[in-house]
């Protein structure tokens, strides 16, 4: 038994620290095209005290640590690039406070989004948070570490815009709090204290988020998916702009895919409307279809596919089924909404070159301030050639995003390098300094957002 392993056992107990190969195996894998990378240890702390002790141990021994949430990024962001310890945070999943009138909740960052949704539905049905377009096992901390977006992206932006406060364990093992909680005033606001935005979107390379105050939003009694379709991709930005003008949709997503055939070369726009009554919903349907989109219907170039359907999140993961072997990975990019047509055309060309049925999706962030556009590539896990095609397609897509002047979202290491090559020199220097100050031993998820 190694001494680090023994120390980890001493901190969290024997059941929650391991260096056994069969357990490390699980943590060596990512669901995407990344090659396996093995950690030396895995540890699952239950409390912030335990986490602090683990981080202190790593810092003292200069052992790399990789914080892990749900492990859902597909981009290999929680794979140990340099071995070391994977810190599985899923046991830190308590709901600490819900302030109904203040519309926020404080949670431990290892909590899953599914658990929050379920808890709110049962105990506070008039409140909701922004659940990301990921499996329910995705964690709050993991999603903030990658600047995720979710169900409420259209009205409120990125999930990281919906944070009222943070607690972070720094690479030294110390704790820092941000927002009103830092001055002991509760967890109700991130502002107006000086901005120290050093932890969101860093893939855990600057610290480990342990507690989060999440903004909550009104949850209407009824929610329906209204689907609109156009054939000409050039119409999509305007359709989204028209709907966005109303300021009523809870979520706004355009999708197109080669399979199933009904979606091939067509663009389906999912409009999630909500209401506390049928009258409220009908008003929203009227404004959406009889007013804003009426010109498309009248001219025969856009049509209502369905109304009143239950909300179902876009299931791009289904594209994994189009190749036997059930694998898929995607590149996401944050781009202007006006980029949709070009992103779709170029993406389907890349798919064609790699014999993969194309699958694209664009989710509006803010009132058409930007869009998360994703290109998904399916592969057969048991067929190396298809994995290579998918990997090559992903890299080509990263390069396409750069060519189009987009911004890669949650880039894998390859994409991070492309982004860093283009980074403003001043920002690059500051990133390097921040990392050096916070993590002088370079133990925090090394390889991620690393400035040479």
């Amino acid at each position, binding site marked *: 038994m190694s001494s680090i392993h023994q120390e980890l056992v001493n901190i969290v107990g024997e059941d929650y620290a391991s260096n056994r190969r069969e357990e490390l195996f699980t943590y060596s894998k990512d669901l995407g095209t990344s090659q396996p990378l093995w950690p030396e240890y895995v540890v699952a702390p239950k409390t912030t005290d335990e986490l602090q002790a683990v981080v202190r141990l790593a810092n003292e021994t200069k052992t790399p640590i990789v914080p892990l949430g749900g492990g859902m990024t597909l981009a290999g962001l929680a794979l140990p690039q340099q071995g070391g310890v994977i810190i599985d945070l899923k046991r830190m999943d308590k709901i600490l406070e819900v302030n109904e009138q203040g519309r926020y909740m404080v949670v431990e960052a290892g909590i899953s989004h599914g658990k929050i949704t379920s808890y709110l539905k049962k105990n506070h049905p008039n409140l909701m948070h922004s659940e990301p377009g990921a499996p329910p096992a995705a964690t709050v901390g993991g999603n903030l570490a990658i600047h995720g977006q979710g169900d409420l992206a259209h009205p409120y932006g990125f999930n990281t815009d919906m944070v009222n406060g943070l607690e972070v364990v720094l690479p030294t093992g110390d704790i820092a709090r941000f927002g009103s909680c830092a001055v002991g005033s509760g967890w109700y606001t991130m502002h107006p204290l000086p901005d120290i935005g050093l932890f969101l979107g860093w893939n855990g390379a600057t610290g480990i988020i342990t507690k989060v105050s999440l903004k909550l939003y009104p949850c209407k009694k009824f929610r329906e998916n209204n689907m609109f379709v156009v054939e000409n991709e050039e119409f999509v930005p305007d359709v989204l702009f028209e709907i966005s003008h109303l300021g009523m949709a809870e979520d706004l997503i355009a999708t197109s895919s080669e399979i199933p055939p*009904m979606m091939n070369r067509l663009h389906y726009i999912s409009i999630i409307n909500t209401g506390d009554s049928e009258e409220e919903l009908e008003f929203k349907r009227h404004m959406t279809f009889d007013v804003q989109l009426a010109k498309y219907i009248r001219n025969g170039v*856009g049509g209502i596919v369905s109304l009143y359907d239950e909300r179902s999140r876009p299931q791009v993961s289904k594209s994994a089924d189009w190749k036997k072997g059930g694998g898929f990975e995607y590149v996401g990019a944050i781009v202007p909404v006006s980029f949709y047509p070009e992103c779709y055309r170029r993406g389907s060309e890349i798919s064609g070159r790699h014999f993969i049925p194309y699958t694209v999706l664009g989710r509006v962030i803010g009132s058409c301030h930007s869009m998360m556009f994703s290109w998904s590539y399916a592969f057969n896990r048991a067929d190396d050639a298809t994995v290579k095609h998918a990997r090559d397609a992903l890299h080509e897509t990263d390069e396409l995003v750069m060519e189009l002047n987009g911004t890669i979202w949650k880039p894998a290491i390859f994409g991070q390098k492309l982004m860093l090559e283009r980074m403003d020199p001043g920002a690059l220097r500051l990133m390097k300094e921040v990392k050096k100050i916070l993590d002088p031993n370079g133990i925090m998820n090394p390889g991620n957002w690393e400035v040479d």
Partner: protein
Amino acid sequence: MYELKFDPDLCMACDTQDCLVKCQHMDIDQEAARTEILKLAGGEDSFVLRDCVTCYACEEYCPNGNHPFYLIVKMQEELGMFPLPDPLVKSGVQVGIPFRGEPVIDEMEGTALNMGVFSPLLGRVAGSKLFEGLPIISHDSRKMFHYFCQLMYLHYGKTSVINERLDGIIQTLAAHGAKEIVHFHDECYGTYTSYAPAFGIEVPFKSIHLFEFLYNRLLELKDEIRPLGYKVVYQRPCSSRLSSDKHPFVAKIFDLISVEYMDREYKDENAMCCGATILGQKKEGSRVYCAEIQKKNIDDMKKAGGQICVFNCPACMQTLGMPVSKAGIMPLFMSDLCRLAIGEKVG
């Protein structure tokens, strides 16, 4: 290519012009009706092509069996006056393209059940005594589009798509070898017993309507029937207009299982369509009109005192099931109601 058998002389000699006079969605007197249907028969434009909501009902109203609805749809296509916006037409046409492998042809003898594109509903029939011993065609939802009767394209103004694909579908069905086929959905039944003959498409098997099959099967199981006693209303689907001779089985089944078939305005010949196809039509106001007729229909069900709304068509169920349920009426497939009557549990 197949040609519609339509005889204008029958319209000339018609005393009623019921096809258009009885239309629930257009206000046409007999004189105008005669003029417009003859225009269509002569290949001319008519406002009917723009105002038709494609509810199929004129096929039933026509006293001469002259297929006015098929004529309207044929002319919509010939004159490029599609009732739906182009992207919906494209989407619809593409929906019927099989994409998950070739069907497995299990050979069968005698009578078989065809699920068409509703194999996802297989759980509603599999294991039921009602369908005991009946081999099932199209039980694999991955392959279901090989059994898609295509008649849906009447709503799209696309008889060409039906005519292009239908022969292949018939060959696939026939390859199973069953001499008689019970169709789970009466759209399929209407395809093989009404549309195909109207266009001269040969069908090498005998079709049996689901309701006729259920009625006869219930007679065989008569000793096991327990009176249900519910007050029921029936949501008649558009495709049942192609087999109005089988519509009486609705009342006969209800009588056999002792449910009360409630009188209401939108019953039998005056049934109101579910509105699914009207929703997306490009004619201005279609969405609102769809919502209005759905509300009228459900209000009528409530007024009639219906406890259960019985559906035949899965598309009607998908469209109206939720609002019917919200109105306090339980939506139920006819096959499920029959299962309840013989003491089976329905999920």
